[in-house]
Protein backbone atom coordinates (compact mmCIF):
# COMPACT_ATOMS: atom_id res chain seq x y z
CA UNK A 1 0.00 0.00 0.00
CA UNK A 2 1.36 3.35 -1.01
CA UNK A 3 1.48 5.87 1.77
CA UNK A 4 1.71 9.57 1.21
CA UNK A 5 2.00 10.39 4.87
CA UNK A 6 -0.61 13.11 4.57
CA UNK A 7 -3.50 12.96 7.00
CA UNK A 8 -6.81 13.29 5.19
CA UNK A 9 -8.90 12.91 8.32
CA UNK A 10 -7.68 13.74 11.78
CA UNK A 11 -9.90 13.20 14.80
CA UNK A 12 -8.85 14.20 18.31
CA UNK A 13 -10.81 13.95 21.56
CA UNK A 14 -14.12 13.96 19.74
CA UNK A 15 -17.40 13.37 21.57
CA UNK A 16 -20.50 12.64 19.58
CA UNK A 17 -24.16 12.53 20.43
CA UNK A 18 -27.43 14.40 20.28
CA UNK A 19 -27.84 17.60 22.30
CA UNK A 20 -27.18 16.73 25.92
CA UNK A 21 -26.94 12.99 25.28
CA UNK A 22 -23.37 11.86 24.68
CA UNK A 23 -23.20 8.65 22.68
CA UNK A 24 -19.43 8.21 22.61
CA UNK A 25 -16.45 10.28 23.75
CA UNK A 26 -12.64 10.37 23.54
CA UNK A 27 -12.47 9.22 19.95
CA UNK A 28 -9.00 9.66 18.42
CA UNK A 29 -7.64 8.54 15.08
CA UNK A 30 -5.91 9.72 11.92
CA UNK A 31 -6.40 8.44 8.39
CA UNK A 32 -3.94 8.89 5.54
CA UNK A 33 -4.73 9.02 1.85
CA UNK A 34 -5.44 5.61 0.31
CA UNK A 35 -6.51 3.92 3.53
CA UNK A 36 -9.51 1.67 3.96
CA UNK A 37 -10.81 1.85 7.51
CA UNK A 38 -13.62 -0.12 9.11
CA UNK A 39 -15.56 0.99 12.17
CA UNK A 40 -16.88 -1.89 14.24
CA UNK A 41 -18.78 -2.19 17.48
CA UNK A 42 -22.01 -3.58 18.86
CA UNK A 43 -25.41 -2.09 18.00
CA UNK A 44 -26.13 1.30 19.53
CA UNK A 45 -22.50 2.09 20.40
CA UNK A 46 -22.47 5.11 18.06
CA UNK A 47 -21.14 3.92 14.69
CA UNK A 48 -23.81 5.68 12.68
CA UNK A 49 -23.67 8.75 14.92
CA UNK A 50 -19.92 8.97 14.28
CA UNK A 51 -20.49 8.71 10.55
CA UNK A 52 -23.25 11.31 10.59
CA UNK A 53 -20.98 13.64 12.56
CA UNK A 54 -18.06 13.16 10.17
CA UNK A 55 -20.41 13.64 7.23
CA UNK A 56 -21.48 17.04 8.53
CA UNK A 57 -25.10 15.97 9.11
CA UNK A 58 -24.96 16.69 12.85
CA UNK A 59 -22.56 18.77 14.96
CA UNK A 60 -19.92 17.11 17.14
CA UNK A 61 -20.22 17.76 20.88
CA UNK A 62 -16.55 18.55 21.46
CA UNK A 63 -13.04 17.89 20.13
CA UNK A 64 -11.48 18.52 16.74
CA UNK A 65 -12.28 17.06 13.34
CA UNK A 66 -9.80 18.07 10.65
CA UNK A 67 -10.51 17.25 7.02
CA UNK A 68 -7.50 18.03 4.83
CA UNK A 69 -6.07 20.09 7.72
CA UNK A 70 -9.16 22.29 7.88
CA UNK A 71 -11.79 22.07 10.65
CA UNK A 72 -14.91 20.28 9.38
CA UNK A 73 -17.25 23.02 10.59
CA UNK A 74 -15.39 25.62 8.48
CA UNK A 75 -16.62 23.91 5.29
CA UNK A 76 -19.79 25.11 3.58
CA UNK A 77 -21.99 22.44 2.04
CA UNK A 78 -20.61 23.46 -1.37
CA UNK A 79 -16.93 23.17 -0.47
CA UNK A 80 -17.53 20.06 1.61
CA UNK A 81 -19.20 18.32 -1.34
CA UNK A 82 -15.87 18.38 -3.20
CA UNK A 83 -13.95 16.84 -0.29
CA UNK A 84 -16.36 14.34 1.18
CA UNK A 85 -18.99 12.00 -0.23
CA UNK A 86 -21.34 9.76 1.70
CA UNK A 87 -23.24 6.56 1.15
CA UNK A 88 -26.08 6.27 3.63
CA UNK A 89 -28.22 3.35 4.71
CA UNK A 90 -31.30 5.00 3.21
CA UNK A 91 -32.06 4.04 -0.38
CA UNK A 92 -32.29 6.78 -3.03
CA UNK A 93 -35.65 8.54 -2.74
CA UNK A 94 -36.50 7.91 -6.37
CA UNK A 95 -35.94 4.39 -7.61
CA UNK A 96 -36.96 5.53 -11.06
CA UNK A 97 -33.52 6.97 -11.77
CA UNK A 98 -31.37 5.04 -14.19
CA UNK A 99 -27.95 3.83 -13.09
CA UNK A 100 -26.28 6.42 -15.28
CA UNK A 101 -28.52 9.26 -14.09
CA UNK A 102 -27.82 8.38 -10.46
CA UNK A 103 -24.07 8.25 -10.96
CA UNK A 104 -24.17 11.51 -12.93
CA UNK A 105 -25.70 13.21 -9.87
CA UNK A 106 -22.33 12.64 -8.20
CA UNK A 107 -20.92 15.31 -10.53
CA UNK A 108 -23.25 18.01 -9.18
CA UNK A 109 -20.60 19.78 -7.08
CA UNK A 110 -18.66 20.48 -10.28
CA UNK A 111 -21.43 21.36 -12.75
CA UNK A 112 -22.90 24.77 -13.55
CA UNK A 113 -26.27 26.07 -12.24
CA UNK A 114 -28.18 23.93 -14.73
CA UNK A 115 -26.15 20.82 -14.02
CA UNK A 116 -24.73 20.56 -17.56
CA UNK A 117 -22.18 17.74 -17.86
CA UNK A 118 -18.85 18.62 -19.41
CA UNK A 119 -16.56 16.20 -21.24
CA UNK A 120 -14.58 15.67 -18.04
CA UNK A 121 -17.77 14.92 -16.10
CA UNK A 122 -18.75 12.32 -18.68
CA UNK A 123 -15.31 10.70 -18.48
CA UNK A 124 -15.59 10.49 -14.69
CA UNK A 125 -19.05 8.91 -15.00
CA UNK A 126 -17.76 6.37 -17.52
CA UNK A 127 -14.78 5.56 -15.28
CA UNK A 128 -17.14 4.94 -12.34
CA UNK A 129 -19.40 2.76 -14.49
CA UNK A 130 -16.39 0.71 -15.59
CA UNK A 131 -14.80 0.43 -12.16
CA UNK A 132 -17.95 -1.04 -10.63
CA UNK A 133 -18.88 -3.26 -13.59
CA UNK A 134 -22.03 -1.28 -14.28
CA UNK A 135 -21.60 -0.46 -17.95
CA UNK A 136 -24.18 -3.01 -19.09
CA UNK A 137 -26.66 -1.85 -16.48
CA UNK A 138 -26.27 1.85 -17.27
CA UNK A 139 -29.78 2.30 -18.63
CA UNK A 140 -31.50 0.11 -16.04
CA UNK A 141 -33.76 1.73 -13.48
CA UNK A 142 -32.74 1.43 -9.83
CA UNK A 143 -35.87 -0.52 -8.93
CA UNK A 144 -34.79 -3.22 -11.37
CA UNK A 145 -31.49 -3.79 -9.57
CA UNK A 146 -30.63 -6.29 -6.89
CA UNK A 147 -29.42 -5.02 -3.50
CA UNK A 148 -25.82 -5.79 -4.41
CA UNK A 149 -26.05 -3.96 -7.73
CA UNK A 150 -27.73 -0.94 -6.12
CA UNK A 151 -24.98 -0.75 -3.51
CA UNK A 152 -22.39 -0.79 -6.28
CA UNK A 153 -24.23 2.03 -8.05
CA UNK A 154 -24.23 4.12 -4.87
CA UNK A 155 -20.50 3.58 -4.39
CA UNK A 156 -19.90 4.41 -8.05
CA UNK A 157 -21.78 7.67 -7.51
CA UNK A 158 -19.48 8.49 -4.60
CA UNK A 159 -16.48 7.71 -6.81
CA UNK A 160 -17.82 10.07 -9.49
CA UNK A 161 -18.05 12.78 -6.85
CA UNK A 162 -14.24 12.51 -6.75
CA UNK A 163 -13.67 13.43 -3.11
CA UNK A 164 -10.64 12.65 -0.99
CA UNK A 165 -12.80 11.05 1.73
CA UNK A 166 -15.69 8.63 1.27
CA UNK A 167 -17.93 7.62 4.19
CA UNK A 168 -20.19 4.58 4.04
CA UNK A 169 -22.80 3.57 6.60
CA UNK A 170 -23.10 -0.22 6.66
CA UNK A 171 -22.46 -0.89 2.98
CA UNK A 172 -22.72 -4.65 3.46
CA UNK A 173 -26.17 -4.97 5.03
CA UNK A 174 -28.74 -7.03 3.11
CA UNK A 175 -25.99 -8.60 1.00
CA UNK A 176 -24.97 -12.24 0.80
CA UNK A 177 -21.39 -13.25 1.57
CA UNK A 178 -20.28 -13.08 -2.06
CA UNK A 179 -21.61 -9.58 -2.56
CA UNK A 180 -20.29 -8.44 0.81
CA UNK A 181 -16.82 -9.50 -0.21
CA UNK A 182 -17.30 -8.02 -3.68
CA UNK A 183 -18.25 -4.58 -2.42
CA UNK A 184 -15.48 -4.52 0.20
CA UNK A 185 -12.92 -5.66 -2.38
CA UNK A 186 -14.04 -2.88 -4.69
CA UNK A 187 -13.72 -0.36 -1.85
CA UNK A 188 -10.23 -1.66 -1.14
CA UNK A 189 -9.27 -1.24 -4.77
CA UNK A 190 -10.75 2.26 -4.87
CA UNK A 191 -8.75 3.20 -1.77
CA UNK A 192 -5.45 1.70 -2.89
CA UNK A 193 -5.48 2.57 -6.59
CA UNK A 194 -7.24 5.94 -6.58
CA UNK A 195 -5.74 7.06 -3.24
CA UNK A 196 -9.18 7.62 -1.73
CA UNK A 197 -9.58 7.49 2.02
CA UNK A 198 -12.57 5.32 2.82
CA UNK A 199 -14.24 4.91 6.20
CA UNK A 200 -17.13 2.52 6.64
CA UNK A 201 -19.14 1.04 9.47
CA UNK A 202 -19.80 -2.67 9.47
CA UNK A 203 -20.90 -5.66 11.46
CA UNK A 204 -18.70 -7.89 9.32
CA UNK A 205 -15.77 -7.93 11.74
CA UNK A 206 -14.13 -10.98 10.21
CA UNK A 207 -14.17 -9.52 6.69
CA UNK A 208 -13.08 -6.16 8.02
CA UNK A 209 -10.07 -7.73 9.70
CA UNK A 210 -9.04 -9.35 6.45
CA UNK A 211 -9.55 -6.40 4.11
CA UNK A 212 -9.00 -3.15 6.02
CA UNK A 213 -5.81 -1.21 6.56
CA UNK A 214 -7.11 0.23 9.81
CA UNK A 215 -9.91 -0.61 12.19
CA UNK A 216 -11.60 1.60 14.74
CA UNK A 217 -13.28 -0.36 17.50
CA UNK A 218 -16.01 1.55 19.28
CA UNK A 219 -16.18 -0.16 22.67
CA UNK A 220 -17.56 2.64 24.79
CA UNK A 221 -14.21 3.21 26.58
CA UNK A 222 -10.86 3.72 24.80
CA UNK A 223 -11.99 3.16 21.20
CA UNK A 224 -8.83 1.35 20.07
CA UNK A 225 -7.65 2.16 16.56
CA UNK A 226 -4.95 0.58 14.48
CA UNK A 227 -3.78 -2.16 12.18
CA UNK A 228 -6.06 -5.23 12.34
CA UNK A 229 -3.19 -7.59 13.32
CA UNK A 230 -2.06 -5.27 16.12
CA UNK A 231 -5.57 -5.03 17.44
CA UNK A 232 -5.82 -8.83 17.51
CA UNK A 233 -2.50 -9.12 19.35
CA UNK A 234 -3.60 -6.53 21.86
CA UNK A 235 -6.74 -8.62 22.36
CA UNK A 236 -9.11 -5.77 21.66
CA UNK A 237 -11.60 -8.00 19.87
CA UNK A 238 -11.94 -10.27 22.90
CA UNK A 239 -14.02 -7.77 24.79
CA UNK A 240 -16.11 -6.59 21.85
CA UNK A 241 -19.03 -8.84 22.66
CA UNK A 242 -20.13 -10.30 26.02
CA UNK A 243 -17.85 -13.35 26.35
CA UNK A 244 -20.55 -15.76 27.54
CA UNK A 245 -22.04 -15.72 24.01
CA UNK A 246 -19.16 -15.49 21.53
CA UNK A 247 -15.42 -15.73 21.80
CA UNK A 248 -12.73 -14.43 19.49
CA UNK A 249 -10.26 -16.93 18.11
CA UNK A 250 -6.82 -15.28 17.73
CA UNK A 251 -5.51 -17.96 15.37
CA UNK A 252 -8.17 -17.60 12.68
CA UNK A 253 -9.37 -14.07 13.35
CA UNK A 254 -12.94 -15.29 13.67
CA UNK A 255 -15.65 -15.45 16.29
CA UNK A 256 -16.86 -18.74 17.74
CA UNK A 257 -20.24 -19.26 19.34
CA UNK A 258 -20.04 -20.73 22.84
CA UNK A 259 -21.89 -24.03 22.83
Amino acid at each position, binding site marked *: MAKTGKNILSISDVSIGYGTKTVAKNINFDLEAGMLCGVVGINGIGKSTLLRTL*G*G*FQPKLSGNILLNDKPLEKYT*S*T*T*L*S*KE*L*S*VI*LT*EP*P*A*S*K*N*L*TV*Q*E*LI*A*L*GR*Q*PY*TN*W*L*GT*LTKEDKQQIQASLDAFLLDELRNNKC*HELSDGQLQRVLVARAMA*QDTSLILLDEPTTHLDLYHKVQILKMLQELAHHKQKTILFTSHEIELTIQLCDRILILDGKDHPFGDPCQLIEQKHFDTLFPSEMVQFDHETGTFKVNK
Partner: protein
Amino acid sequence: MQGSRTYRFSFILMLLALLCSLLLNISSGSVTIPFPDTMSTLLGETPEIASWEYIIWDYRVPKAFTSILVGAGLSLSGLLMQTLFRNPLAGPFVLGISSGASLGAAILLMGTSIFAGYTSLSFLGDITLSIAASIGSFLVLLTVMIVAQRVKDTMALLIIGLMFGSITSAIVSVLAYFSSAEDLQRFNFWSFGSVGNLSVNQLLLLGSIVTVGILLSIVSIKSLNAFLLGENYAQSLGISLKKSRLTIIIATGLLAGGITAFAGPIAFVGLAVPHLTRQIFDTMEHKVLIPGVMLYGAILMLLCDTLAQLPNSASVLPINAITSLVGAPVVIWLLVRKRKMMF
Protein backbone atom coordinates in the same frame (compact mmCIF):
# COMPACT_ATOMS: atom_id res chain seq x y z
CA MET B 1 -27.83 12.25 -17.79
CA GLN B 2 -28.96 11.70 -21.32
CA GLY B 3 -28.85 14.76 -23.53
CA SER B 4 -32.04 16.50 -24.48
CA ARG B 5 -31.26 15.64 -28.11
CA THR B 6 -32.81 12.21 -27.64
CA TYR B 7 -36.09 13.84 -26.77
CA ARG B 8 -36.13 16.45 -29.53
CA PHE B 9 -38.51 14.41 -31.68
CA SER B 10 -40.98 14.01 -28.81
CA PHE B 11 -40.83 17.71 -28.07
CA ILE B 12 -41.54 18.64 -31.69
CA LEU B 13 -44.50 16.24 -31.75
CA MET B 14 -45.85 17.71 -28.53
CA LEU B 15 -45.49 21.27 -29.84
CA LEU B 16 -47.49 20.24 -32.91
CA ALA B 17 -50.11 18.60 -30.69
CA LEU B 18 -50.29 21.78 -28.64
CA LEU B 19 -50.87 23.85 -31.78
CA CYS B 20 -53.58 21.45 -32.98
CA SER B 21 -55.40 21.41 -29.64
CA LEU B 22 -55.13 25.19 -29.46
CA LEU B 23 -56.82 25.55 -32.87
CA LEU B 24 -59.39 22.88 -32.00
CA ASN B 25 -60.13 24.69 -28.75
CA ILE B 26 -60.55 28.06 -30.42
CA SER B 27 -62.67 26.75 -33.27
CA SER B 28 -65.18 25.01 -31.03
CA GLY B 29 -67.75 26.66 -28.82
CA SER B 30 -71.41 27.38 -28.30
CA VAL B 31 -71.56 29.43 -31.49
CA THR B 32 -70.63 27.46 -34.58
CA ILE B 33 -67.98 29.29 -36.56
CA PRO B 34 -66.67 27.41 -39.65
CA PHE B 35 -63.04 26.44 -39.29
CA PRO B 36 -61.80 28.46 -42.34
CA ASP B 37 -63.47 31.55 -40.90
CA THR B 38 -61.87 30.94 -37.51
CA MET B 39 -58.49 30.68 -39.17
CA SER B 40 -58.91 33.79 -41.27
CA THR B 41 -60.15 35.76 -38.26
CA LEU B 42 -57.11 34.62 -36.29
CA LEU B 43 -54.93 35.77 -39.17
CA GLY B 44 -56.37 39.25 -38.89
CA GLU B 45 -59.13 39.32 -41.48
CA THR B 46 -62.63 40.57 -40.71
CA PRO B 47 -65.10 37.68 -40.78
CA GLU B 48 -68.51 37.60 -42.52
CA ILE B 49 -70.39 38.08 -39.31
CA ALA B 50 -68.98 40.85 -37.14
CA SER B 51 -69.80 39.18 -33.83
CA TRP B 52 -67.48 36.27 -34.74
CA GLU B 53 -64.49 38.55 -34.44
CA TYR B 54 -65.61 39.55 -30.98
CA ILE B 55 -66.30 35.94 -29.95
CA ILE B 56 -62.93 34.73 -31.14
CA TRP B 57 -60.68 37.53 -29.98
CA ASP B 58 -62.41 38.59 -26.78
CA TYR B 59 -63.64 35.29 -25.53
CA ARG B 60 -62.10 32.20 -27.10
CA VAL B 61 -58.48 33.30 -27.41
CA PRO B 62 -58.18 34.50 -23.78
CA LYS B 63 -59.91 31.30 -22.67
CA ALA B 64 -57.47 29.17 -24.66
CA PHE B 65 -54.49 30.98 -23.19
CA THR B 66 -55.91 30.65 -19.70
CA SER B 67 -56.21 26.90 -20.33
CA ILE B 68 -52.58 26.76 -21.40
CA LEU B 69 -51.41 28.68 -18.32
CA VAL B 70 -53.59 26.61 -15.98
CA GLY B 71 -52.61 23.26 -17.47
CA ALA B 72 -48.91 24.02 -17.69
CA GLY B 73 -48.73 25.65 -14.25
CA LEU B 74 -50.69 23.00 -12.36
CA SER B 75 -48.70 20.19 -13.94
CA LEU B 76 -45.44 21.90 -13.06
CA SER B 77 -46.55 22.43 -9.46
CA GLY B 78 -47.47 18.74 -9.30
CA LEU B 79 -44.02 17.74 -10.54
CA LEU B 80 -42.32 20.02 -8.00
CA MET B 81 -44.38 18.56 -5.15
CA GLN B 82 -43.75 14.97 -6.17
CA THR B 83 -40.01 15.58 -6.14
CA LEU B 84 -39.96 17.74 -3.01
CA PHE B 85 -42.16 15.43 -0.94
CA ARG B 86 -40.61 12.30 -2.50
CA ASN B 87 -44.13 11.09 -3.10
CA PRO B 88 -45.72 9.91 -6.34
CA LEU B 89 -49.18 10.84 -5.10
CA ALA B 90 -48.36 14.43 -4.27
CA GLY B 91 -50.17 17.16 -6.13
CA PRO B 92 -51.90 20.45 -5.37
CA PHE B 93 -55.19 18.67 -4.73
CA VAL B 94 -53.98 15.75 -2.66
CA LEU B 95 -51.81 17.81 -0.34
CA GLY B 96 -54.69 20.14 0.44
CA ILE B 97 -53.23 23.17 -1.36
CA SER B 98 -56.39 23.54 -3.44
CA SER B 99 -58.47 23.11 -0.29
CA GLY B 100 -56.50 25.94 1.26
CA ALA B 101 -57.31 28.12 -1.71
CA SER B 102 -60.99 27.14 -1.41
CA LEU B 103 -60.95 28.10 2.23
CA GLY B 104 -59.44 31.48 1.42
CA ALA B 105 -62.03 32.05 -1.29
CA ALA B 106 -64.88 30.83 0.92
CA ILE B 107 -63.93 33.07 3.81
CA LEU B 108 -63.77 36.03 1.47
CA LEU B 109 -66.95 35.26 -0.51
CA MET B 110 -69.15 34.04 2.32
CA GLY B 111 -67.37 34.96 5.53
CA THR B 112 -67.10 38.72 5.02
CA SER B 113 -70.83 39.16 4.75
CA ILE B 114 -71.43 37.04 7.84
CA PHE B 115 -68.77 38.46 10.13
CA ALA B 116 -68.32 42.00 8.93
CA GLY B 117 -71.91 42.58 7.96
CA TYR B 118 -71.14 43.59 4.39
CA THR B 119 -74.15 42.77 2.33
CA SER B 120 -72.72 43.37 -1.06
CA LEU B 121 -69.62 41.89 -2.57
CA SER B 122 -69.61 44.16 -5.54
CA PHE B 123 -66.63 46.11 -4.25
CA LEU B 124 -64.60 42.97 -3.82
CA GLY B 125 -62.81 42.62 -7.09
CA ASP B 126 -61.54 39.37 -8.48
CA ILE B 127 -58.05 40.46 -7.55
CA THR B 128 -59.07 40.31 -3.88
CA LEU B 129 -60.44 36.85 -4.50
CA SER B 130 -57.19 35.67 -5.99
CA ILE B 131 -55.19 37.15 -3.13
CA ALA B 132 -57.44 35.41 -0.58
CA ALA B 133 -57.13 32.09 -2.40
CA SER B 134 -53.35 32.43 -2.74
CA ILE B 135 -52.97 33.20 0.97
CA GLY B 136 -55.08 30.16 1.78
CA SER B 137 -52.99 27.85 -0.35
CA PHE B 138 -49.70 29.29 0.94
CA LEU B 139 -50.78 28.74 4.54
CA VAL B 140 -51.67 25.12 3.86
CA LEU B 141 -48.44 24.57 1.91
CA LEU B 142 -46.35 25.99 4.76
CA THR B 143 -48.17 23.84 7.31
CA VAL B 144 -47.69 20.74 5.20
CA MET B 145 -44.00 21.63 4.84
CA ILE B 146 -43.55 22.06 8.61
CA VAL B 147 -45.30 18.75 9.20
CA ALA B 148 -43.14 17.14 6.53
CA GLN B 149 -40.04 18.22 8.45
CA ARG B 150 -41.22 16.36 11.53
CA VAL B 151 -43.00 13.45 9.96
CA LYS B 152 -40.60 11.56 7.72
CA ASP B 153 -43.31 9.15 6.65
CA THR B 154 -44.69 10.29 3.31
CA MET B 155 -47.87 8.31 3.83
CA ALA B 156 -48.64 10.36 6.93
CA LEU B 157 -48.14 13.48 4.85
CA LEU B 158 -50.84 12.46 2.40
CA ILE B 159 -53.22 11.66 5.23
CA ILE B 160 -52.55 15.10 6.71
CA GLY B 161 -53.29 16.63 3.30
CA LEU B 162 -56.57 14.74 3.17
CA MET B 163 -57.41 15.91 6.71
CA PHE B 164 -56.80 19.50 5.64
CA GLY B 165 -59.26 18.88 2.85
CA SER B 166 -61.84 17.63 5.35
CA ILE B 167 -61.31 20.55 7.72
CA THR B 168 -61.65 22.96 4.83
CA SER B 169 -64.85 21.46 3.52
CA ALA B 170 -66.27 21.43 7.05
CA ILE B 171 -65.54 25.12 7.51
CA VAL B 172 -66.93 25.82 4.06
CA SER B 173 -70.16 23.97 4.98
CA VAL B 174 -70.50 25.98 8.16
CA LEU B 175 -69.95 29.21 6.24
CA ALA B 176 -72.40 28.09 3.58
CA TYR B 177 -75.05 27.39 6.20
CA PHE B 178 -74.97 30.97 7.39
CA SER B 179 -74.45 32.77 4.12
CA SER B 180 -76.94 34.17 1.64
CA ALA B 181 -77.97 32.32 -1.46
CA GLU B 182 -76.13 34.80 -3.67
CA ASP B 183 -72.81 34.40 -1.89
CA LEU B 184 -73.20 30.66 -1.83
CA GLN B 185 -73.86 30.58 -5.55
CA ARG B 186 -70.83 32.72 -6.23
CA PHE B 187 -68.63 30.38 -4.24
CA ASN B 188 -70.15 27.35 -5.94
CA PHE B 189 -69.41 28.73 -9.37
CA TRP B 190 -65.84 29.46 -8.33
CA SER B 191 -65.44 25.91 -7.02
CA PHE B 192 -66.64 24.38 -10.29
CA GLY B 193 -63.52 25.77 -11.88
CA SER B 194 -63.55 27.86 -14.98
CA VAL B 195 -61.01 29.08 -17.47
CA GLY B 196 -63.45 31.28 -19.35
CA ASN B 197 -64.11 34.37 -17.28
CA LEU B 198 -60.76 36.10 -17.18
CA SER B 199 -60.35 39.64 -18.46
CA VAL B 200 -57.19 40.56 -20.36
CA ASN B 201 -55.79 42.22 -17.23
CA GLN B 202 -56.45 39.16 -15.11
CA LEU B 203 -54.93 36.99 -17.79
CA LEU B 204 -51.79 39.16 -17.74
CA LEU B 205 -51.62 38.93 -13.95
CA LEU B 206 -52.04 35.14 -14.05
CA GLY B 207 -49.43 34.99 -16.80
CA SER B 208 -46.93 36.91 -14.68
CA ILE B 209 -47.54 34.72 -11.62
CA VAL B 210 -47.07 31.55 -13.67
CA THR B 211 -43.95 32.99 -15.32
CA VAL B 212 -42.36 33.71 -11.94
CA GLY B 213 -43.25 30.17 -10.86
CA ILE B 214 -41.65 28.73 -13.98
CA LEU B 215 -38.48 30.84 -13.56
CA LEU B 216 -38.12 29.73 -9.93
CA SER B 217 -38.52 26.11 -11.06
CA ILE B 218 -35.84 26.51 -13.71
CA VAL B 219 -33.46 27.96 -11.12
CA SER B 220 -34.20 24.90 -8.96
CA ILE B 221 -33.49 22.29 -11.64
CA LYS B 222 -30.18 21.23 -10.12
CA SER B 223 -31.50 20.92 -6.59
CA LEU B 224 -34.64 19.13 -7.82
CA ASN B 225 -32.41 16.53 -9.45
CA ALA B 226 -30.41 16.17 -6.23
CA PHE B 227 -33.61 15.78 -4.20
CA LEU B 228 -34.29 12.61 -6.20
CA LEU B 229 -31.65 10.94 -4.03
CA GLY B 230 -33.18 12.21 -0.79
CA GLU B 231 -32.45 15.25 1.32
CA ASN B 232 -29.33 13.92 3.05
CA TYR B 233 -27.74 13.00 -0.25
CA ALA B 234 -28.76 16.36 -1.72
CA GLN B 235 -26.98 18.11 1.15
CA SER B 236 -23.87 16.00 0.64
CA LEU B 237 -23.89 17.11 -3.01
CA GLY B 238 -23.53 20.72 -1.93
CA ILE B 239 -27.20 21.72 -2.14
CA SER B 240 -28.33 24.26 0.44
CA LEU B 241 -31.42 22.49 1.74
CA LYS B 242 -33.17 25.48 3.29
CA LYS B 243 -32.70 27.77 0.33
CA SER B 244 -33.69 25.31 -2.35
CA ARG B 245 -36.63 23.94 -0.36
CA LEU B 246 -37.94 27.48 0.11
CA THR B 247 -37.51 28.33 -3.59
CA ILE B 248 -39.42 25.23 -4.62
CA ILE B 249 -42.20 25.90 -2.10
CA ILE B 250 -42.62 29.49 -3.25
CA ALA B 251 -42.74 28.30 -6.87
CA THR B 252 -45.34 25.67 -5.99
CA GLY B 253 -47.41 28.09 -3.94
CA LEU B 254 -47.39 30.72 -6.69
CA LEU B 255 -48.35 28.20 -9.35
CA ALA B 256 -50.98 26.21 -7.47
CA GLY B 257 -52.29 29.11 -5.40
CA GLY B 258 -52.38 31.66 -8.21
CA ILE B 259 -54.04 29.32 -10.67
CA THR B 260 -56.61 28.04 -8.16
CA ALA B 261 -57.41 31.63 -7.29
CA PHE B 262 -58.23 32.56 -10.89
CA ALA B 263 -59.57 29.33 -12.29
CA GLY B 264 -60.95 27.60 -9.21
CA PRO B 265 -59.84 24.26 -7.80
CA ILE B 266 -59.01 22.04 -10.76
CA ALA B 267 -58.50 18.43 -9.83
CA PHE B 268 -56.08 15.75 -11.00
CA VAL B 269 -54.07 17.75 -13.55
CA GLY B 270 -51.22 18.34 -11.11
CA LEU B 271 -51.18 14.73 -9.95
CA ALA B 272 -51.69 12.90 -13.23
CA VAL B 273 -49.73 14.89 -15.80
CA PRO B 274 -46.22 14.25 -14.34
CA HIS B 275 -46.92 10.51 -14.49
CA LEU B 276 -48.30 10.72 -18.01
CA THR B 277 -45.28 12.74 -19.09
CA ARG B 278 -42.90 10.10 -17.76
CA GLN B 279 -44.56 7.64 -20.13
CA ILE B 280 -43.19 9.74 -23.00
CA PHE B 281 -39.95 11.04 -21.52
CA ASP B 282 -38.41 8.08 -19.77
CA THR B 283 -36.14 10.11 -17.53
CA MET B 284 -36.05 11.78 -14.14
CA GLU B 285 -33.96 14.72 -15.37
CA HIS B 286 -35.93 17.87 -14.55
CA LYS B 287 -34.36 19.72 -17.46
CA VAL B 288 -36.46 17.46 -19.70
CA LEU B 289 -39.43 16.90 -17.37
CA ILE B 290 -40.20 20.58 -16.67
CA PRO B 291 -40.87 21.53 -20.31
CA GLY B 292 -42.43 18.10 -20.82
CA VAL B 293 -45.07 18.37 -18.08
CA MET B 294 -45.86 21.95 -19.09
CA LEU B 295 -46.52 20.97 -22.70
CA TYR B 296 -48.51 17.90 -21.71
CA GLY B 297 -50.52 19.83 -19.12
CA ALA B 298 -51.35 22.60 -21.58
CA ILE B 299 -52.50 20.11 -24.22
CA LEU B 300 -54.61 18.15 -21.72
CA MET B 301 -56.22 21.29 -20.34
CA LEU B 302 -57.06 22.60 -23.82
CA LEU B 303 -58.68 19.27 -24.70
CA CYS B 304 -60.59 19.13 -21.41
CA ASP B 305 -61.86 22.64 -22.01
CA THR B 306 -62.91 21.70 -25.53
CA LEU B 307 -64.86 18.79 -24.06
CA ALA B 308 -66.42 21.01 -21.41
CA GLN B 309 -67.60 23.37 -24.10
CA LEU B 310 -70.21 21.03 -25.55
CA PRO B 311 -70.23 21.56 -29.31
CA ASN B 312 -73.23 23.44 -30.67
CA SER B 313 -74.72 23.89 -27.26
CA ALA B 314 -74.90 26.86 -24.97
CA SER B 315 -74.10 24.84 -21.87
CA VAL B 316 -70.60 24.64 -20.44
CA LEU B 317 -69.76 21.77 -18.13
CA PRO B 318 -67.71 22.52 -15.01
CA ILE B 319 -64.07 22.05 -16.01
CA ASN B 320 -63.31 20.48 -12.62
CA ALA B 321 -65.71 17.63 -13.42
CA ILE B 322 -64.06 17.01 -16.79
CA THR B 323 -60.51 16.92 -15.44
CA SER B 324 -61.63 14.50 -12.70
CA LEU B 325 -63.41 12.30 -15.23
CA VAL B 326 -60.26 12.19 -17.33
CA GLY B 327 -57.68 12.24 -14.52
CA ALA B 328 -59.01 9.72 -12.02
CA PRO B 329 -59.18 6.79 -14.48
CA VAL B 330 -55.69 7.65 -15.66
CA VAL B 331 -54.31 7.39 -12.12
CA ILE B 332 -56.11 4.08 -11.61
CA TRP B 333 -54.85 2.80 -14.96
CA LEU B 334 -51.27 3.76 -14.09
CA LEU B 335 -51.52 2.03 -10.72
CA VAL B 336 -52.99 -1.14 -12.17
CA ARG B 337 -50.59 -1.31 -15.08
CA LYS B 338 -47.41 -0.58 -13.17
CA ARG B 339 -48.67 -2.14 -9.92
CA LYS B 340 -46.65 0.45 -8.12
CA MET B 341 -46.55 4.18 -8.55
CA MET B 342 -43.13 5.66 -8.64
CA PHE B 343 -41.81 9.09 -9.13
